[in-house]
């Protein structure tokens, strides 16, 4: 595999940022909306339509759709075994937002978790983003 160019790496880093931020905001909005809606246990998608009357749920779904598109774009450019750990930085972001944004207390064990995830992100970032042969470039 040829060495990764700096522009390829920079674009991947922007995509990773987009994937992480949309995943965090989308899940927080969705979780907030679902708690307001109440319990749903059903095999029928129709029963979930009621949840879509909640604006938080709708916002969460729209933001997670953006996450899906950006994640597919990232997976077209990088290995799954690279994408998985580097996008885990979202957990650190949620915990730090809770601590500094909402005043939640982070226990010592949670801090160890944050450090472990951060070390995992850094370790994965040091590997080449792609180890499989690239397909011909996609032209619009």
């Amino acid at each position, binding site marked *: 595999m040829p060495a990764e160019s700096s522009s390829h790496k920079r*674009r991947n880093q922007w*995509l990773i940022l*987009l994937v992480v931020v949309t995943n965090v905001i989308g*899940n927080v909005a*969705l*979780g907030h909306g*679902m*708690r307001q*809606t*109440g*319990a*749903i*246990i*059903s095999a029928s998608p129709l029963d*979930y339509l009621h*949840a879509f009357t909640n604006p938080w749920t709708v916002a969460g779904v729209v933001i*997670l759709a953006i996450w*899906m*598109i*950006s*994640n*597919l*774009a990232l*997976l*077209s450019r990088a*290995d*799954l*075994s*690279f*994408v*998985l*750990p580097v996008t*885990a930085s979202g*957990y650190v972001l949620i*915990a730090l937002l809770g601590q500094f944004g909402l005043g939640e207390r982070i*226990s010592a*064990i*949670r801090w*160890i*978790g*944050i*450090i*472990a*995830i*951060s*070390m*995992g*992100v850094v*370790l*994965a970032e*040091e*590997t080449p983003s792609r*180890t*499989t042969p*690239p*397909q*011909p*470039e*996609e032209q*619009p």
Partner: protein
Amino acid sequence: MTGVRWALVGIIAAANTAGDVLNTAGMKRQGEVQDLSPRSVGHMIVRVFHNWYVLAGIGALTVSFFALLSLLSIAPVSFAIPATAISYALETFLAKHVLKEDVGARRWAAATLVAIGVVLLQW
């Protein structure tokens, strides 16, 4: 209700793993998205609708999504964490053996550290 919660955790882990592996296989066959301009992204989305791997992957992630909606309606977000931790190990294994990625010691260490960290965040 605890049994239902753990069944949902299992469904989320299995469907999420299948979805990510299928999406990666499909997007690698489709070719790299060069930039995030509206034209490029629009073209990628159109091609996705003809890509059976990605369609199956999105189907699996949809199952995972509805299972997550159910879980979030009866349990706190932290209850979904074990499903995520299992997925990290399983997906890294499948990335090596199915997607044929070069998963060396660093990537295994990264996936393991993240999975441990995700579990510790529950405390």
